[in-house]
Each structure stands twice: as structure tokens, then as C-alpha cells.
């Protein structure tokens, strides 16, 4: 018994010794990594690799702009379209107030987010004024609401309204709801007017617009993919943003009204930082509405 134990012990020591000392190892470099790809041992990895500056300069196609005042070269930036100013007023609130002002029966004026902001700011100014004794005046700025009301009262055509609003937006004197901003940086007055009609119909007891039948055959930029899930097949709908699209327009295209824009926005948050940041060529997921 004791002899067996000692023999096993000695055997274990010998095996350990072989593992540690590796007397039969030839000292070769490992010629492949774990996947068997040969490792080139003569490649030196260094950060100080000399770069051909002239070649780099030629490669840059965009002309570099030098700032005349500072003499510094400005890095080329991705060119973004100029966008109208936006505020967080909801288009439905704004439309509601337009209808109330035009005397639609049953439509009560609501306080828009922009009005709330203005009111709280004037409260703060009153506080500062009470403390410092200096009079400060809150700048009066034109509202989209007022422009639309004036234009509708004057009986302007749709084209004329489009011109008036876009001129004001380009001049930066008016802020518009985010979902009216189009991929080419204009204000989507078509959606604005369409929504006034829709909300007026609902206010006078009409039915809310139905969800239209959309298919790739009647809608440019639309795609339908069938996705196989564990239990069933799901139809995933995609839409590639076209020139002149606003999020409001896409919502009307797929859901009949602007009120579902948030569903689209939520589903595409990874792509859209805010509803007005819509760009031509973006591929948006169009979710199904929960029944």
C-alpha cells in the first residue's frame, strides 16, 4: 500500500517537473494565433508611423476655410440644412387656438407650452426687477398662431400662406412646432392646413380620419419586410424619408393624422434626436398601431 502511494507521489512530482521545465520544448515561437492565422512576427506596431502629409492634404477634397479674424483653419463640417426655429408647442394645441380664435363653436383656447414658457419668464423678470429696480421688457415676438389666423381671415391661398410662413421662419421671427420641419428645412404648411381641417371636422362632430391603406405600390419610399419570429410572422414596415417630408406628413401618410407622430418618433429615437431633425434618406421604422 505504502509503496503504491510513494510511487504515485513520485510520478506526480515527475509530471509536475515536466510541465514546469518543459525539457522537450524546442523553444519555437508560436506561429499561429488561436484561430490558426499565422502571426507575422516582423511587423512592428507603433504609433509613430510616419505619414505622408502631402498625400493626406490631397486626399481632403473639401477646401479648408481659414478664419480671417483668427487665422485658424476651420475643420470641414458636415453641411446641415438651415432649419426653422422650433419650440415645444404642440401642433394640436396651436391648431386648437387658431380654431377658437376663428370662432369655432365648442373649441376652447388652451395654453400652449410656448405661452407657459413666456409667462414663467415674465414672472422671473418681475422677480429680478423687484430685486434690482431695473425695468426689463420681455421682447414681443410674432407667433405662428397669429400669422395663421391673419392669413386665414384674409382668405389667402394655400400657396400664399406657405410663402408667408416660410418667409417668417427663414427670417427667424417665428418658432414652429417641431413636426412641421421638413427634411429640406422648410415649414410644412400642407400638414399645418390639413390638420386645421381635420381638427375643425372633429370639433364639429365629424369622424376622426381613418388609418389609410398604405402599401409599397401606392407609396414611394415604403418597404415591407416579413420578419420570422419564434411563433409568428411579423410585417415590418419601413419608410425612406423623401425630400420635403416632415414627421407630421409621414404620420398623416401612414396613420391619417398627426396625432400618431410620437409613435413614429419613439420607434426611431436612435435615428432622430428630435422630431425636427429629419433628413432625406433616413430609413424610419413605421410601427403598427396598437388596436
Amino acid at each position, binding site marked *: 500500500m505504502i509503496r503504491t502511494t510513494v510511487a504515485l507521489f513520485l510520478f506526480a512530482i515527475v509530471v509536475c517537473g515536466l510541465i514546469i521545465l518543459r525539457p522537450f520544448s524546442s523553444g519555437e515561437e508560436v506561429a499561429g494565433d488561436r484561430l490558426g492565422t499565422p502571426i507575422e512576427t516582423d511587423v512592428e506596431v507603433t504609433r509613430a508611423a510616419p505619414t505622408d502629409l502631402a498625400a493626406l492634404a490631397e486626399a481632403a477634397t473639401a477646401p479648408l476655410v481659414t478664419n480671417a479674424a483668427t487665422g485658424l483653419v476651420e475643420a470641414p463640417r458636415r453641411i446641415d440644412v438651415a432649419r426653422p426655429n422650433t419650440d415645444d408647442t404642440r401642433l394640436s394645441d396651436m391648431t386648437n387656438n387658431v380654431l377658437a380664435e376663428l370662432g369655432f363653436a365648442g373649441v376652447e383656447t388652451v395654453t400652449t407650452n410656448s405661452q407657459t*414658457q413666456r409667462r414663467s*419668464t415674465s*414672472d*422671473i423678470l418681475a*422677480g*429680478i*426687477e423687484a430685486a434690482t429696480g431695473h425695468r426689463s421688457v420681455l421682447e414681443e415676438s410674432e407667433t405662428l398662431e397669429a400669422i395663421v389666423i391673419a392669413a386665414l381671415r384674409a382668405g389667402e391661398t394655400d400657396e400664399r400662406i406657405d410663402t408667408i410662413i416660410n418667409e417668417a421662419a427663414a427670417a427667424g421671427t417665428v418658432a414652429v412646432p417641431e413636426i412641421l420641419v421638413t427634411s429640406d428645412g422648410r415649414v410644412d404648411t400642407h400638414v399645418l392646413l390639413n390638420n386645421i381641417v381635420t381638427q375643425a371636422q372633429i370639433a364639429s362632430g365629424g369622424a376622426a380620419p381613418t388609418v389609410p391603406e398604405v402599401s409599397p405600390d401606392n407609396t414611394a419610399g415604403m418597404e415591407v419586410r416579413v420578419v420570422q419570429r419564434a411563433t409568428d410572422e411579423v410585417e415590418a414596415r419601413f419608410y425612406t424619408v423623401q425630400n420635403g417630408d416632415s414627421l407630421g406628413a409621414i404620420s398623416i401618410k401612414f396613420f391619417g393624422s398627426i396625432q400618431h407622430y410620437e409613435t413614429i418618433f419613439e420607434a426611431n429615437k436612435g435615428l432622430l434626436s428630435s422630431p425636427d431633425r429629419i433628413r432625406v434618406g433616413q430609413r424610419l421604422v413605421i410601427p403598427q398601431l396598437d388596436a
Partner: protein
Amino acid sequence: MNHRILMAAFCFMATAGNAQDVRITTFKSDSTFALNDQTFTVTRNQDTQATLGSEYALTSRACPPHCLQPLIVADGVATFAELEVLTFLEEHVTGGTGLFIDARSPADYATGSIPGAVNVPFPTLAAENRYRDDILRALGAVDKGDDALDFTQAMALALYSGGPWSDDAPTAIEHLLAAGYPAEKLFYFRGGIQAWAHVGLTIQHSQNPG
């Protein structure tokens, strides 16, 4: 004999009760400052047995959003404690060169604020507020063309919020710096209303004007 000692002890107790037991510092019993001709006096609660009650006694607000703030919130923005706040109120606010700002929401401000503070809720200083420049102008910024503001004449601002757990004041400071407000004109009272209440300093109950 016994009677006389008792009388002496009684007299001593009476005088001790009359003098102010709880001062701000050894040489300062109160702080008086003026804000646009309105005079404020800050003292400490004279009840040596007083403890904190209600809102100011809370220790464990959920984080996020109520997370502990660093001593220095931004480069160049100095941090205040209670004494520096009083000095700021006595010198800058009284002299009309500074303003003490409560960066909390109007609802929080209405529950009690530091005397002399003006409520400017932090969201109104964000770039999203279309009327922010109007606020900055009221604080002394001047238009210099190209949509830019000149802050050389702007007031020094000391900001506070709920306490060391509140990011309202640090966020307001961040917004002001982003708007171009010079860091050396900004001060952060990290302790906020909670630290103020914790040492029994006067708290005013006031509503926002308007």
C-alpha cells in the same frame, strides 16, 4: 446664607437668558442687507434645543435624480458656505452688483427660501427657453450684435438650490456658462436651503411676484 446663593444663581440665569446665545460668529450676531431698498435681517434660531423638521430633515432622497454634488461644479466658479453667502448679500447684493438666485422650481421656492434670494428656475436658463436672452439682459448682459451678449456689466450671481443633493443650481450654472456668462461672476452655494436651515438661519416664506 443659603437664600442668597439661590438668588445669585437666579439672577445669573436670567441674564444668560436675555443675551443672545446663538450667534452667527463670535463677533456677529446678525446680518443685515438691502435689496432694492427692502431691508433683510438674518439671525439664527435662538432655541438651542431646536431640531430640523419636515422637508429639511430628509436624508435619503432618491439618486438619481437627487445625487451628491462636487465641491467645485465648474472651472472658475467658486463655492460658498453660509458666511460667504452673508458677505455676498451684504456687499454685492446691497451694493446692487450681485444677485442671489434660487434655482429651484417656483413650487419649491414658495415653501421657503433664503432672504434676499430671487427665484430663477434652472430650466428657464436653458438654451431651449426662447426668452432666455431676456433674462440674461435683466441680469445686466448687453447686446453686442450678431445675437451675442456682452457680460462685462452683468451682475455677479450666487446660486443655490435644495442642498448638496440637488443639481438644480449646478445645472443653472452650466446653462449660464454655456450662454457665455463669465465663470468668475458665478458662485455656487453648495449647502443650499438645507444647510441654511440646518444651522438655524432665517428662512423667508415668500411667493413669486406676479
